């Protein structure tokens, strides 16, 4: 054991909340170190005497560890490697685990020798807005940008796939308590005893909060006894859930708080069954925000060197981690907090050279302890400057003049390797602000505190500016009881323990110290005092402008240690009180979070539903190549057993399928079409209003094609609807509009025409549908239905029959999309595969073949049928050549607006057929139609190509559908299709959109 300790030269011999019996190996920049269980990466580095851990964002200045918590602006490291590599993690928030691997960032080639430190020398030129002012006006910004972005920066991300799993959970509670410090624990005990369902979340591995970093006594015993006793009681209460390592990062509407639980971040990698992180979405009736406060620094020259840290952080390193962050310390403070640090450091054997207090009067109650420990206090004084390039070695101290603007007497230099700074504490009002609250400025603590309540989230303890431990404990108890009462629960008793804290003397604001040299306000973004005064001179005086101009507070720490100082300096420049300047908007997340837990398990195949038809397995077993159509998987074409997937074989298969349908018979799965069951005595009237054509005279047992418009007069969707009974209709929609058409009809039935007696229900999933198409389809059907007469007179075009196929109830519609004689057969989904196979068996005699969406698409283009690419929301019925379907005798959706001038313009692009003049060019759908491809832009657009078949097997050449302006159609027969993106242009002939069987004889016979 001694062996390990000997290498941790800055580790104290005893004390702290670390397990000295559990040493842990880790590496930093490839060097091997040892720490203890209970360490953070930061405390373990400090224990090993590592002070330099990174380079700053812009000037590449050496930086060390600045804090002991999530507010860390400096010590950002890249954690782990390979597919678990994670950049920009805060060393102060990483629990040490065996084999931890960390690397410093933003330096090249290494931390000590960083070539870009030249930026520090160039810094007079690199003020706020420098890059944009200098380079944006010049040509070639894209060239400079690459180098600028590379020079400034954060760590690099990994390019590998994340190997870990993430989870989500939704929980409800009466009272959510955010923060497990003294306030939160006290509140949890009272709320738990009152019987409320309580969730307590805390981002640390164990509860205690600030108590873990202090030497407080509660009821004359070290505070951790009280914490342990409370945790034991809470663990025993069934109504209380404690979630540690769980960071509440956002407070949303309706009192929903989201938190990320780090399930296995403290382990080398997740155990087999574990996720890495879990998102908790917590819906609470009441929320107690016991989120504590964050210490902020004071702005003075060269206040960023390794060895300079927040006073409370220095205290936490000795108290919680038994680590000496330095050997000789100077404390610089404007409030009582610095004295606590001085005493705790002195107790741990660190030489405290001086407490530099900017206030005139030293608090009297500290005098006794100051004398005992022989600590010198220099009142009315400030730290003016610091020295030591790779780490602090001395500090310059001087006396402040009465107005605070100059240094009075001769300053002097003392040697020190630790400078602990306290500029006061800012309550963590972030979650309160997320909930919609507006913070207000409190002069007595010189910080923003929560103002009026916006939702049910009440702040208590340090997060509302109550910094005394007794107040925190009392407030936690009180607020819990107030909430218990509001929730109709019995209030609970709790005896608040006695504390050993001193009374607190108010802070005297000191934001910045006069002097030359770089004075950092925001350490993470390298924003200096002079950047803020520059922003003021240039008129960026609003806090929101200040933030965006200087990048103040825009780092991953969201300015937790810097925002208020920056705003206060701007207030001084403007000679206005801070409350008038205000603060920038706090937005979630409170701390950086990974995207993994937000996505949870909804990734890969689980990202969206995959819908498969009832015949899917058959398709799969019979060579189908699938294509995604919305959420559906549809067979695109079928390969033979002998064929390997290739472009040639695809073309071959598609031609084969088209020819089979045109000459014999084919079968296609059309289950994906939207199917809506319509019932009620006003159904006919309703269809009359929804469709543009007339529906009242449709007899039972007949189908009709119809188009729907939107209220603005443009075409919405098309399909056939059949009358099954007096008050019973069956509608089909396009695959892509199935859900939209249903909602559209529901809207009119429920909101606009509630008096119509009509019910609409989606039955898409209930019916498997297949179209039997081709000149031999009647032969197949008659074999399938030996007892039914299916000749042209008995079962005419647009006829509908309800029949039994081998005991299976089926609906047969004689409608056609392919242009051939065709029957669409619907059976209950469970029988889909059986009937599909039966039809293929029966059809063998006619060389039946299944066909896919490609063949179907080619045949509908040959037939000039419109589909999705033509119904694109920009076309009218007249554009599509469907003006005959527009009834003039009734009011229907869109009937008013379709008469608008613009929609009746004769020159609107109209549906046409297009054939390449060379009869072989493949014209891309989406290509633009122009008069002459050689013209220089801007070239007037005369239309576009909407659908293309690269080869019509029936006609032997490519064909397309498209839209061409009405006046062009009349004057010319040739036009050019251009696709500048592909550098293509083809001359086309304009034809009738119906290429095949223009009289539609094939469907009717």
């Amino acid at each position, binding site marked *: 054991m001694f062996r390990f300790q000997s290498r941790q030269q800055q580790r104290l011999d005893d004390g702290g909340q670390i397990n000295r019996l559990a040493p842990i190996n880790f590496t930093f920049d490839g060097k091997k170190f040892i720490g203890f269980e209970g360490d953070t990466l930061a405390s373990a580095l400090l224990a090993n005497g590592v002070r330099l851990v990174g380079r700053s964002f812009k000037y590449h200045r050496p930086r060390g560890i600045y804090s002991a918590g999530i507010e860390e602006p400096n010590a950002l490291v890249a954690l782990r490697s390979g597919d678990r590599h994670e950049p920009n993690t805060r060393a102060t928030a990483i629990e040490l685990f065996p084999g931890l691997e960390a690397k410093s960032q933003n330096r090249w080639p290494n931390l000590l020798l960083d070539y870009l430190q030249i930026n520090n020398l160039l810094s007079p030129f690199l003020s706020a807005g420098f890059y944009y002012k200098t380079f944006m006006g010049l040509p070639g910004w894209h060239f400079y940008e690459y180098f600028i972005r590379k020079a400034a920066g954060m760590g690099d991300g990994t390019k590998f796939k994340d190997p870990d799993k993430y989870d989500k959970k939704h929980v409800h509670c009466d009272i959510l308590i955010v923060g497990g410090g003294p306030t939160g624990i006290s509140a949890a005990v009272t709320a738990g005893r009152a019987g409320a369902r309580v969730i307590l979340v805390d981002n640390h591995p164990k509860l205690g909060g600030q108590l873990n970093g202090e030497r407080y006594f509660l009821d004359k015993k070290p505070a951790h006894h009280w914490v342990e006793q409370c945790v034991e009681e809470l663990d025993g209460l069934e109504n209380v859930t404690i979630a540690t390592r769980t960071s509440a990062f956002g407070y949303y509407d309706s009192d929903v708080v989201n938190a990320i639980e780090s399930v296995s971040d403290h382990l080398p990698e997740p155990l087999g069954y574990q996720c890495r992180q879990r998102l908790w979405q917590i819906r609470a009736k009441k929320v107690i925000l016991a989120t504590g406060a964050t210490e902020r620094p004071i702005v003075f020259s060269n206040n960023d060197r390794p060895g300079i840290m927040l006073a409370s952080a220095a205290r936490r390193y000795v108290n919680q981690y038994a680590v000496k962050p330095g050997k000789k310390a100077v404390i610089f403070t404007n409030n009582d907090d610095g004295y606590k640090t001085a005493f705790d450091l002195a107790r741990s054997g660190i030489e405290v050279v001086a407490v530099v207090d900017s206030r005139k009067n030293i608090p009297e109650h500290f005098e006794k302890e100051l004398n005992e420990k022989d600590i010198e206090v220099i009142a009315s004084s400030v730290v003016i400057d610091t020295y030591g390039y790779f780490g602090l070695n001395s500090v310059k101290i001087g006396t402040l003049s009465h107005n605070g603007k100059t240094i009075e007497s001769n300053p002097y230099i003392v040697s020190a390797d630790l400078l602990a700074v306290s500029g006061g504490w800012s309550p963590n009002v972030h979650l309160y602000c997320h909930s919609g609250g507006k913070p207000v400025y409190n002069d007595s603590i010189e910080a923003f505190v929560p103002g009026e309540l916006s939702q049910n989230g009440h702040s208590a303890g340090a997060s509302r500016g109550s910094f005394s431990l007794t107040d925190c404990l009392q407030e936690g108890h009180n607020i819990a009881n107030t909430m218990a009462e509001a929730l109709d629960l019995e209030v609970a008793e709790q005896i608040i323990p006695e504390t050993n804290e001193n009374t607190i003397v108010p802070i005297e604001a000191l934001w910045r110290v006069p002097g030359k040299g770089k004075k950092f306000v925001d350490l993470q973004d390298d924003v200096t005092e002079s950047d803020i005064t520059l922003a003021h001179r240039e008129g960026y005086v609003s806090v929101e402008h200040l933030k965006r101009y200087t990048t103040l507070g825009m780092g991953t720490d969201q300015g937790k240690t810097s925002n208020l100082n920056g705003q206060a300096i701007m207030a001084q420049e403007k000679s206005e009180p801070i409350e008038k300047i205000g603060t920038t908007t706090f937005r979630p997340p409170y701390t950086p979070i990974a995207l993994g837990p937000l996505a949870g398990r909804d990734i890969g195949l689980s990202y969206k539903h995959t819908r498969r038809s009832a015949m899917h397995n058959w398709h799969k077993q019979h060579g189908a190549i699938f294509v995604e159509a919305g959420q559906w998987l549809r067979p695109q074409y079928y390969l033979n057993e002998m064929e390997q997937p290739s472009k040639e074989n695809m073309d071959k298969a598609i031609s084969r399928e088209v020819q089979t349908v045109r000459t014999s018979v084919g079968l296609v799965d059309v289950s994906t079409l939207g199917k809506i069951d319509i019932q009620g005595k006003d159904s006919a009237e309703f269809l009359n209003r929804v469709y543009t054509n007339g529906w009242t005279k449709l007899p039972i047992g007949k189908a009709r094609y119809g188009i729907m418009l939107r209220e603005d007069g443009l075409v919405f969707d098309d399909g056939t609807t059949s009358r099954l009974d007096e008050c019973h209709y069956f509608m089909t929609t396009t695959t892509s509009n199935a859900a939209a058409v249903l*909602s559209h009809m529901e809207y009119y039935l*429920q*909101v*606009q025409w*509630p008096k119509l007696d009509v019910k609409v229900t989606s039955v898409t999933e209930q019916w498997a549908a297949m179209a039997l198409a081709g000149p031999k389809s009647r032969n197949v059907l008659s074999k399938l239905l030996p007892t039914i007469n299916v000749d042209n007179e008995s079962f005419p075009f647009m006829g509908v029959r309800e029949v039994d196929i081998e005991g299976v109830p089926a609906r047969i519609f004689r409608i056609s999309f392919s242009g051939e004689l065709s029957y669409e057969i619907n059976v209950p989904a469970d029988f889909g595969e059986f009937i599909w196979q039966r039809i293929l068996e029966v059809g063998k005699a006619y060389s039946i073949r299944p066909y896919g969406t490609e063949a179907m698409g080619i045949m509908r283009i040959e037939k000039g049928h419109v589909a999705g690419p033509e119904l694109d929301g920009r076309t009218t019925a007249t554009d599509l050549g469907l003006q005959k379907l527009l009834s003039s005798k009734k*009011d229907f959706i869109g009937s008013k607006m379709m008469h608008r001038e613009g929609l009746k313009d004769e020159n609107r692009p109209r549906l046409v057929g297009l054939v390449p003049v060379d009869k072989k060019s493949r014209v891309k759908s989406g290509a633009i139609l122009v008069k002459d491809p050689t013209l220089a832009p801007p070239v007037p657009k005369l239309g576009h190509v909407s659908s293309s078949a690269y080869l019509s097997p029936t006609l032997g050449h490519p064909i397309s559908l498209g839209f061409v302006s009405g006046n062009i159609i009349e004057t010319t027969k040739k036009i050019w299709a251009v696709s500048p993106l592909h550098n293509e242009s083809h001359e086309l002939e304009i034809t009738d959109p119906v290429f095949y069987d223009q009289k539609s004889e094939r469907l009717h016979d």
Partner: protein
Amino acid sequence: MLIINCPLCGPRDHAEFTYVGDATKNRPKNGDSSNDNAWYDFVYLRDNPKGLHEELWQHSFGCRCFVKVLRNTLTHEIIATGMPKDNLILKEKGLELNV
């Protein structure tokens, strides 16, 4: 994160609903040229009020009912919900008078 009280199903998470739009627009009765402005208003004009707004949400992943919601667009607070025919603003004013 909103909870919407569906008049048929009770309080449900807003993820079950689809936002439809302004609930105050009614389809003009006839299509002759005398009411062009009414049609223009129904099809195209929508206010974007700061404060109370009567809007429609469809309970798509529930009963599929269109729910009228009186919502404060500033605070996202849902003051009342009802069926499409209900006049929630009047109802709320009535409540205030009763208090």
